[in-house]
């Protein structure tokens, strides 16, 4: 059975200026023991999705439709009391900003202890021991001494580790990590990702890794859910996505990843020997590409496919109908040169997937044409 | 925040300062909004602010209520009220009589304390218009048979006068101090603000009373004039603080530097940019100063240190009410009505102040709604 499944989650805020549709059908599945990355620009609703899973939505958020199934049980129908036993114990979260996620006036030890005591009674000495070992596990030196420190006495990376340790203390089945690497410096990022991977393996947790960084995806995730404007637009394994993105937005994301990410991508692709020549890092476009146009704000969502104002593959239908996230059986040309075609079942929300896939494969060798296409699309608008 | 004995100067507003420091992040934003408000919006920003204020119902109604009652107080001698000073020992402690039972009588005798020229004219006009007709004891009479309604209205004049005088003094001192400190900055600013800090942590109520003890020794009129000056001189501290903050923000704002680079003289740029930037915040703090000055006046009068009989003030009425109750007679109206009037006025002033702050103080807009 799927461990965690999100189905057609729709969420809006009712504000003075009318409703704001911030999530518009988010769907994905997370199997036990795997890492799913949720990728999207900032503002696309990743954090709100994560908070929905935890039942921690800010006041004013209204869930319109959708289900969050944890081992078949719909979390959205839980009572406040039931939620309490789910949070921390079954689902735990590592928050985006470790600075503000910790209480400034409580010591690290006190805050860690709560994570245990919220779920089971234990003697103070046992709790302390458990907390110290959790700190040790996330790579904090001299954990005993750190228990009595206040958050402001720790460095940014350490605080992030404390937050991770706190999430792990009640041994959750699913760990939700909301941009765990955005607030820390580059060397620390790698360490934290490694740590998450290590812990996932050790406790056979499932990890939902929220990020906007494809480098992180390539390094840490087995599956990817691409989110655009509050909507899952593509679901794929990491390899599939990097090889043949089916949604124009995914294509753009891949192209706009900085070269460091491209390197990770290359390594992902290189891991599968059956593939044809891929674009090596040296061939990466020197100029950093970014998808022209701006992410739409929830207040002014385009009709039809939300991506159509920025999409180079747009057809007439795109601005009228909304493509569903469906499993399309597509014939994906996996190798331009050999003409090899594989038929796969992939899920993306786009009417023109086959064209996109073909272009994506073509672009591995000749990105230039695709970029021209994109720029031509934006010309009349700018 | 305003309006209780707690707010008398003597305590620094530590919580408010703490709250402000939490908004430090928005300081830059604050400056930008300020300059934007002053320069970008081409049309009159005051019209927009008026509309905004109107949308805040309680603030708008408070404004009307206060305006109306100020008018009533201002033209009090013109109204057909009984004399507030006439001692009528035949009719002490009359309980309130509803207007539909006794609407009025023809007993008016013009007995007042020495009135000013304008008040004498008003009084003559009143006698011309209404003759000896006066309203009945709608709110009852006090232990000396004086009409409570008339005394409340005339007491309101005192409050109004004190509030305006205090506000004006605090305006002059506070704004000039704040502008000087904020404009020059550096060491001058540091020392000036440190002085404000020290002054703000003095228990002013005690010092003021001590000053009144020493200075107002001889005549009560000397005491009253000292009293006005002292009140104004005390309440400029927070005004100076906010004005200084605004001026500092302005000075560092880019547009002023631009203006200077373009060759505008310091003085002209000061005046041109100062007024639109500082005025809103000054208005807000004036509305917040007025209730606390009124409160302080009534506090002193209640202690017998403020306005002295035969003049009236609300504090004096409250004192008389408190003194009139005894186990044998409980003239509740003498306690209740002055309390109601004072409470309503202070409430309206507080509401108006809050509303004005929302509309005029850019910092409060950056704040999430509570």
């Amino acid at each position, binding site marked *: 059975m799927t461990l965690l499944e999100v189905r057609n989650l729709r969420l809006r805020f009712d504000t003075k200026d009318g409703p704001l549709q911030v999530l518009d059908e988010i769907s994905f599945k997370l199997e036990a023991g795997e890492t799913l990355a949720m990728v999207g620009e900032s503002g696309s609703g990743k954090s709100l999705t994560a908070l929905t899973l935890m039942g921690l939505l800010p006041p004013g958020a209204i869930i319109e439709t959708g289900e969050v199934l944890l081992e078949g049980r719909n979390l959205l129908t839980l009572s406040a009391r039931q939620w309490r036993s789910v949070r921390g114990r079954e689902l735990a979260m590592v928050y985006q900003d470790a600075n503000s996620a910790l*209480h*400034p006036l409580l010591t690290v030890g006190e805050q860690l202890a709560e994570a245990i005591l919220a779920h089971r009674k234990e003697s103070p000495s046992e709790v302390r021991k458990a907390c110290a070992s959790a700190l040790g596990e996330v790579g904090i030196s001299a954990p005993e001494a750190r228990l009595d420190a206040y958050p402001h006495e720790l460095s940014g990376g350490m605080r992030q580790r404390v937050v991770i340790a706190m999430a792990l203390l009640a041994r959750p089945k699913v760990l939700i990590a909301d941009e765990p690497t955005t607030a820390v410096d580059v060397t620390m990022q790698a360490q934290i990702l490694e740590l998450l991977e290590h812990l996932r393996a050790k406790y056979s947790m499932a990890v939902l890794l929220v990020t906007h960084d494809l480098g992180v995806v390539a390094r840490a995730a087995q599956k990817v859910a691409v989110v655009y404007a509050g909507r899952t637009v593509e679901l794929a394994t990491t390899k599939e996505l990097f090889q043949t993105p089916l949604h124009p937005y995914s294509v753009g994301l891949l192209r706009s990843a900085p070269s460091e990410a491209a390197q990770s991508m290359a390594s992902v692709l290189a891991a599968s020997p059956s593939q044809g020549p891929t674009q090596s890092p040296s061939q990466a476009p020197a100029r950093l590409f970014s998808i022209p146009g701006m992410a739409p704000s929830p207040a002014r969502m385009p009709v039809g496919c939300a991506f159509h104002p920025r999409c180079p593959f747009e057809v007439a239908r795109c601005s009228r109908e909304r493509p569903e996230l469906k499993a399309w059986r597509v014939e994906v040309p996996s190798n331009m040169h050999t003409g090899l075609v594989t038929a796969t079942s992939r899920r993306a929300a786009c009417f023109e997937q086959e064209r996109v896939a073909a272009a994506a494969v073509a672009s591995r060798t000749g990105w230039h044409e695709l970029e021209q296409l994109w720029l031509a699309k934006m010309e009349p608008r700018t | 925040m305003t309006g209780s004995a707690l707010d008398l100067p003597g305590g620094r507003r530590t919580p408010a300062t703490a709250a402000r420091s939490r908004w430090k992040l928005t300081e830059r934003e604050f400056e930008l909004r300020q300059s934007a408000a002053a320069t970008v919006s081409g049309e009159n920003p005051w019209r927009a602010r008026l509309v905004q204020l109107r949308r805040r119902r309680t603030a708008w109604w408070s404004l009307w209520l206060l305006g109306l009652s100020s008018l009533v107080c201002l033209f009090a001698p013109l109204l057909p009220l009984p004399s507030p000073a006439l001692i009528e020992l035949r009719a002490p402690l009359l309980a309130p009589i509803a207007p539909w039972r006794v609407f009025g009588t023809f007993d008016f005798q013009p007995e007042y304390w020495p009135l000013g020229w304008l008040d004498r004219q008003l009084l003559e006009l009143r006698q011309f218009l209404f003759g000896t007709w006066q309203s009945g004891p709608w709110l009852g009479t006090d232990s000396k048979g004086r009409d409570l309604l008339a005394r409340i209205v005339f007491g309101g004049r005192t409050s109004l006068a004190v509030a305006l005088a205090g506000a004006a003094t605090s305006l002059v001192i506070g704004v000039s101090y704040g502008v000087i400190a904020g404009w020059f900055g550096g060491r001058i600013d540091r020392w000036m603000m440190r002085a404000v800090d020290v002054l703000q942590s003095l228990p002013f109520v005690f010092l003021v009373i001590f000053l009144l003890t020493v200075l107002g020794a001889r005549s009560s009129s000397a005491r009253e004039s000292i009293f006005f000056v002292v009140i104004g001189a005390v309440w400029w501290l927070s005004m100076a603080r906010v004005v200084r903050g605004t001026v500092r923000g302005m000075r560092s704002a880019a547009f002023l530097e631009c203006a200077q680079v373009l060759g505008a003289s310091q003085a002209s740029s000061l005046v041109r940019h100062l007024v639109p930037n500082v005025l809103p915040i000054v208005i807000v703090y004036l509305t917040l100063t007025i209730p606390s000055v009124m409160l302080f006046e009534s506090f002193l009068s209640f202690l017998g240190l403020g306005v002295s009989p035969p003049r009236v003030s609300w504090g004096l009425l409250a004192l008389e009410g408190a003194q009139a109750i005894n186990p044998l007679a409980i003239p509740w109206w003498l306690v209740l009505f002055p309390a109601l009037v004072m409470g309503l006025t202070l409430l309206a002033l507080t509401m108006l102040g809050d509303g004005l702050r929302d509309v005029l103080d850019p910092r409060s807009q950056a704040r999430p709604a509570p």
Partner: protein
Amino acid sequence: MIRAALRHLAGLVISVVIVLAVSFALMHAVPGGPFDAERGLHPEIEANLARAYHLDWPVWKQFLQYIGPFNLGPDGWLGTGADRFGGVLALDFGPSLRHRDYDVADILAASLPVSFQLGALALAWSVPLGILLGTLAAARAGTWLDALLRVLTTTGIVLPGFVIASLSLLVFAFAWPLFPVAGWSSLRHMVLPAFALGAPCATYVARLTRSGVLENLQLDFVRTAKGKGLGRGAVIWRHALRSALLPVVAYLGPASAAILTGSLVVEKIFFLPGAGTHFVNSALNRDYTLALGVTLVYTVLVFCLNALADLLASFLDPRVGGRQES
């Protein structure tokens, strides 16, 4: 922390010196003051005054004597023996101008305990209750409880303290005689004054707490706390309230200043033999020495309480004090 304490101390010294100098100058300058020749006091008090203020000395020497803490001898610099200490800094405020045979210090020694008891009692009930009510209002924001508390706090903030005092006297001592009207001999006597004095403080603390807790409930660390599976009670009382208490603690200084101020009217209404009553009477009778004595004591007191509250607040906040790790 030490720097902050020193800063408070400096402020205290500066203001005490200013108050002393100004009051000395004023008392000299003003007709009818203790140093004025034609004051027409009782001969006994005259004698006391002459003895205390050495009216035959030059003014600067009078000032030094007046400040203290050492008595100046008639010929030499310092006095000797048992009379070594004197002047304001030695807590010798001179003789009262109106109470024959009493020194200001005697009057203060008799009346200050009453005022302190009253003030302490008022703080003791109002601050905890204010915190409790404020937190409850925040926890139940938007419900009838919140609305009721809002009405109460608005009333408490809008009505002046003396109005609250006379209303409570009217209701609970006369109309419905639960408590005695005046006096200070038993706990029952203390209930109404302490209530009237603490009510404004309670309402202010309640408002402060409510807005603090509400604000904190929006913050990320509260979300973290909920995310651990903590119940609503723990989240509010342990997490949201904790950081909302810092401003409340800092407010204790201004609050006690306000309580001292309020005690003037409360003592007057309830006829309590406290320092406030003496102070008001001294102002009415122009008993300068007594008025100055109370003013000085309260100045120092307010400074100390403010400093104490500030230091307590920074002591409770681990972020102050700078144990930053590099």
